[in-house]
């Protein structure tokens, strides 16, 4: 399989879907001539022109609002919100319009819109450009929420998201853009709502999302050297959530650690813990542990930012604490 970066994989998915379906178009701030703030949409403007790769004013509300209207009218918009933090500016359009139109209208509307946005700390981008806010979106019926951790997942999941007839939040991680990995050749999709076992093991289950999958993989190496075999489950789509794969893994290991980059309090990891407790308490041999960010905004100074982001070391220690 050829190697590709996460960013190239997303770019390839956009290109292929735009070639396949003329109803697909992308819009956002600096996505056209500039190729996107992180370079993800590079080359698309040249290939598809200003009618389908649309530079917008700094108007998040209009970016999402017009996308919802266009989706209701039959198109398949793929708007980009430059940083996930800016979603706060257009939440009404996502929460109260896109997510609810189908239900409010008695199933008589569909909103096939894929919002691409970027989460994550690790760039020194500080409090307003680094958050992981996925839990906001998983609380809203009508949305789907995708958080890919590898180039192959990013490509296959983005294609599925664009073809999905529901509004999808596609959350990329800025630190992952430059990471490489094998990506299958030819057309392929990864279904939304299907987890992936990123490493098999029998002793402890780690459920990790996005960047934290890589932290968990690093921790797993250290732990393996000490004779502890962890199994890493990457939900990939957190809404809908593939509960079965998580429960099956816990049935095997009896122990669960959940790792997310978001602020732990009120984070999505709490939902996973609650589900496992409610549905599979008897499978557990130890209390569930959650690892997430402390209850503070994302700091600027690299020293502080490092302390903020959950580390492989903390995962190792937490796993070991389970005995």
């Amino acid at each position, binding site marked *: 399989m050829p190697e590709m970066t996460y960013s190239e994989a997303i770019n390839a998915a956009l290109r292929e879907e735009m070639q396949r379906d003329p109803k697909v178009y992308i819009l956002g701030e600096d996505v056209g001539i500039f190729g996107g703030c992180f370079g993800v949409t590079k080359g698309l403007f040249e290939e598809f022109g200003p009618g389908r790769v649309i530079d917008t004013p700094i108007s998040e509300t209009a970016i999402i609002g017009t996308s919802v209207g266009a989706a209701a009218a039959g198109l398949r918009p793929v708007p980009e919100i430059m940083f996930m933090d800016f979603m706060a500016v257009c939440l*009404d359009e996502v929460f109260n319009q896109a997510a609810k139109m189908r239900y409010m209208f008695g199933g008589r509307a569909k909103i096939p819109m894929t919002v691409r946005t970027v989460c994550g700390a690790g760039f020194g981008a500080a409090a307003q450009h680094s958050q992981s806010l996925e839990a906001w979106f998983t609380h809203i019926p009508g949305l789907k929420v995708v958080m890919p951790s590898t180039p192959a997942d990013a490509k296959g999941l983005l294609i599925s998201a664009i073809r999905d007839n529901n509004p999808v939040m596609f959350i990329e991680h800025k630190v992952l853009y430059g990471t490489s990995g094998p990506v299958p050749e030819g057309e392929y999709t990864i279904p939304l709502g299907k987890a992936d076992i990123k490493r098999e093991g029998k002793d402890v289950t780690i459920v990790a999302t996005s960047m934290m999958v890589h932290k968990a993989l690093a921790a797993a190496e250290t732990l393996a050297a000490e004779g502890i075999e962890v199994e890493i489950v990457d939900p990939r789509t957190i809404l809908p959530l593939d509960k079965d794969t998580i429960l099956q893994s816990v049935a095997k290991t009896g122990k669960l650690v959940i790792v997310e980059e978001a602020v732990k309090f009120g984070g999505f990891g709490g939902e996973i813990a609650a589900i496992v407790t409610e549905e599979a308490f008897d499978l557990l041999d130890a209390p569930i542990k959650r690892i997430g960010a402390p209850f503070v905004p994302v700091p600027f100074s690299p020293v502080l930012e490092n302390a903020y982001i959950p580390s492989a070391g903390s995962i190792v220690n937490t796993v070991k604490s389970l005995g």
Partner: protein
Amino acid sequence: MSFSKERLLELYKSMVTIRTFEETAAELFANGEIPGFVHLYSGEEATAVGVISQLEPQDYIASTHRGHGHLVARGGDVALMFAELFGRQTGYCKGKGGSMHIADMSLGFLGANGIVGAGLPLAAGAAFACKYQNNNGVAVCFFGDGASNRATFHEALNIASIWKLPVIFVCENNMYGISMSQERHQNITDVADRASAYGIPGISVDGNELFAVYEAAEEAIRRARQGEGPTLMECKTYRYRGHFEGDATVYRCEEELQSWKLKDPINRVKKRMIEMGVFSEEENQAIWAEVKTIVQKGVDFAKNSPLPDEAELVEDVYCD
């Protein structure tokens, strides 16, 4: 503008249907038969009819919390509307939306909206879809004077102006946003003045005068269809009833209401049609009676319709 007799009667009947629908809904609400919030449109009929009567099947409408009139003017089915107000399974939204979320996608009616000002970007988006698909469609967005202070107004007008979208932004300036009079909520008297900030035409008309609305809308729709871009159109009007049913209207006085009733949009058309010899007072009465029967049938349909099954609670969240 010259209208055939049939056309005039059609416009008139549409206004009468809106008024009758709304006054009937008011009664039903007062009797405790309609749950939730109901915002009625009585007094503003000329705006909906003057604009919507000129739309084509491929066109779109984004409506507001005060949206019944817009859907009636678009040819919505009053029986399905009442069924929705009553929360019945047979309603437009299977009882899941209610008054504030009535929609009919088959009529390009993108829904009433519980969020003030939310319709502007939605309509711009539908207009974008028309332009993208080159299908000669346009989108109309209704919104209130209060909504013109929202960020969505600015972003939607700006983006529509640079993209030259086929959209008509129709501000129904009824001089209040709930209790806030226009002079208390914005430092202008004509919302249409704001058009100049976006380099698009802005026109302010007497929203209680059907033909004034019609004429302004005709030009705005023509511009949109011919690729000349958006128009901001303001219709000065007044709502007869409270903001929502149950509102005691402490923020306005009876004289103000009465002065507007002297400018009643339906009476004005009626007078003109009688003067023109389009119909007699007798025929006028017959129209009201006919409409009343249709509306009453709609109410009966709604009342006799089944309530939703509890199992439907979790349906229609996602699309396959």
